[in-house]
């Protein structure tokens, strides 16, 4: 009996990784994302994107840094899609787990509070998040990079495309009547007005699911296009469905999001012809290895288009370790990441940095983006745009 128990304890110790030999050769990479609440799909995108990248590294025997080879391992905490959650997760990773690099999070609140904790400790953060202060801040974004585009990057050229292809005179937008809506609406209205497109804007109460009266009102005002803008997937889907149900037969599109698969699910047949901004083209030949790895590990189901962004970020981090020859000196790692332009992780083509003009620092990734249209219940790529 006793030997049995001893064996169990030893097994447990080995499994938990307390074995002295195992601990030395493993690099712990932190991750933060929403694993509960409304942002769960995005948290899973971070987790899965990073895991697929790390699986590749481990399958190839690990990463060789200097003359030592390491296995890599992900340590992830939930931020509940809140600033406080992001702070708690970052503190655990930085002070308790002593990680040197964090993949994620997504969302302005969690990202801002994460970098407030990580930057003084010189911990690298490779994140998303739309607010400009993520890069334009008191730290001058000393140790963080953004691996996705924000509206500042994609909206100007998408607007140009919308103007040329949809030929709108008057567009309708619905925004929630809260802090987010109040801050998003004026910038969007300004952008439309500058492009010579008139705007009919209306606010709805958060939690409301019935938009028919408001859409009827916009139709009466003579809109010839309906922009779902930054509305979350659930509301966006209902807006598309209800607009079609009350007979709105002009174009419906989304200059934000993206949440095309979710909208198709909610609106069903009514989603036909819906046009949206999209971050990634899963039909492209270069996307297939990632799609295959995802299917093998996580099965069927929607692949969130944020997944490739964090796969990319993780691969860039590993490549930087290899090139810099260090896993501890994050200043050297940061400088290496800044100079890593041209490295191709396989999903987006050669990496490019930008951002100096807007944020004062070239820590903003430069990516192509897509316009998709729903045809026969499936998102079909309509145009590939760049930031230039």
């Amino acid at each position, binding site marked *: 009996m006793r030997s049995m128990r001893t064996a169990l304890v030893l097994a447990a110790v080995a499994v938990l990784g307390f074995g002295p030999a195992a601990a030395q050769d493993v690099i712990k990479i932190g991750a933060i994302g929403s694993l509960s609440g409304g942002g*769960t799909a995005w948290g899973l995108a971070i987790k899965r994107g990073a895991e697929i990248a790390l699986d590749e590294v481990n399958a190839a025997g690990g990463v060789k840094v200097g003359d030592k080879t390491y296995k890599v391992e992900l340590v992830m905490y939930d931020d509940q899609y809140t600033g406080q959650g992001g702070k708690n997760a970052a503190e655990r990773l930085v002070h308790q787990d002593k990680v040197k690099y964090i993949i994620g999070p997504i969302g302005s609140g969690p990202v801002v509070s994460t970098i407030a904790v990580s930057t003084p400790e010189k911990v690298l953060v490779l994140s998303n998040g739309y607010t400009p202060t993520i890069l334009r801040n008191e730290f001058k974004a000393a140790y963080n990079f953004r691996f996705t585009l924000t509206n500042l990057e994609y909206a100007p050229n998408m607007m140009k495309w919308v103007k040329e292809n949809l030929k709108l005179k008057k567009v309708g937008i619905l925004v929630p009547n809260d802090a987010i809506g109040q801050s998003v609406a004026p910038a969007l209205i300004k952008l439309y007005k500058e492009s010579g497109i008139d705007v009919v804007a*209306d606010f709805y109460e958060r939690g409301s699911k019935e938009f028919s009266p408001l859409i009827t009102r916009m139709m009466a005002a003579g809109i010839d296009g309906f922009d779902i803008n930054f509305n979350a997937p659930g509301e966006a889907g209902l807006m598309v469905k209800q607009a079609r*149900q009350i*007979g709105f037969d002009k174009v419906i599109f989304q200059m934000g999001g993206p949440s095309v698969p979710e909208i198709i699910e909610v609106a069903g*047949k009514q989603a036909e012809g819906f046009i949206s901004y999209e971050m990634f083209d899963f039909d492209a030949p270069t996307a297939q290895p990632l799609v295959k790895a995802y299917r093998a590990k996580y099965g069927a189901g929607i692949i969130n288009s944020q997944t490739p962004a964090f796969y990319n970020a993780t691969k860039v981090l590993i490549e930087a370790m290899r090139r810099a020859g260090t896993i501890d000196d994050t200043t050297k790692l940061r400088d290496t990441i800044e100079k890593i332009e041209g490295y191709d992780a396989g999903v987006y083509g050669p990496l490019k940095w930008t951002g100096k003009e807007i944020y004062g620092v070239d820590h903003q990734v430069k990516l192509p983006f897509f316009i998709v249209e729903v045809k026969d219940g499936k998102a079909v790529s309509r145009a590939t745009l760049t930031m230039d």
Partner: protein
Amino acid sequence: MLTNTTILGQIVVNGLNLSAVYILVALGFTLLFGIMRVVNFAHGEFAMLGGFAFYYLYAVLHVPWLLAVVLGAVAVAGPSLILEWLVFRWFYHKMFQSMIGLLGLSLVMTYTSLLVWDVFERNVPSAFDSILRFQGVIIPMDRLVTIGVSLAALGAFYFLMVHTKIGLAMRAAAQDVEIALTQGIDARKIYRWSFFVAVFLAALAGALYGQIYAVSPFMGERPLFVAFIVVILGGMGSIPGAALGGIILGFTESLLGTLYGGSVASYASFGIVILLLIFRPWGLLGTRE
């Protein structure tokens, strides 16, 4: 550009549809208050369970639509009698205690559902996605069916209350429990019946709500909120009041929302409620205490 007639037509269609769902949501809420004097804060959660039951029956098991709606409501109302025995019966005729107790129950139900079903919204595939056009007014078929089912439920409920013995007993208990008891009415039996009917209506409303919008553990918040406004408008415990309140709220939202926008519509709905609470706190058709 829409013409004035079609806008007016659209306002009526939207208003009818909103009213139908609102009445259905409020009926069960007002019934429990009228007979047992409990303020059922868990009302929205029964609607939520109705939404999930319908989702599984219709979207997963492919039971025919109407059968799924009714069966789903029965599947929630039947087992809910256990909750009646465990929790509700201790709060009958204790209005304030019931508010706190059932608020707690509502949280337990919401977060248990969260553990079971996770937070994301599920969509019920559209059962009727055709669109009727009549003189320029557009009527989505699924909304028309909702109105139809609500009317049928209202009719059946009216029949139960007015033309059956159990309905008569329920009304007697609502008017004065002690007198009803002396007439040989079994109060426990009446309470259980009323509870079953109230939960059935809530679950039915939840199924229709889930069909039009989406099903999720938090979907009960909005129906509860609506039930409160409707019942305060019509008068706590008054069944014709619930119908009138539902129509007023539905048409206020549709009319003002279309003419003046969303903020004005919510502003006016609450404005009416506040005015009513000041000048006629027992509601339009309620009885003065």
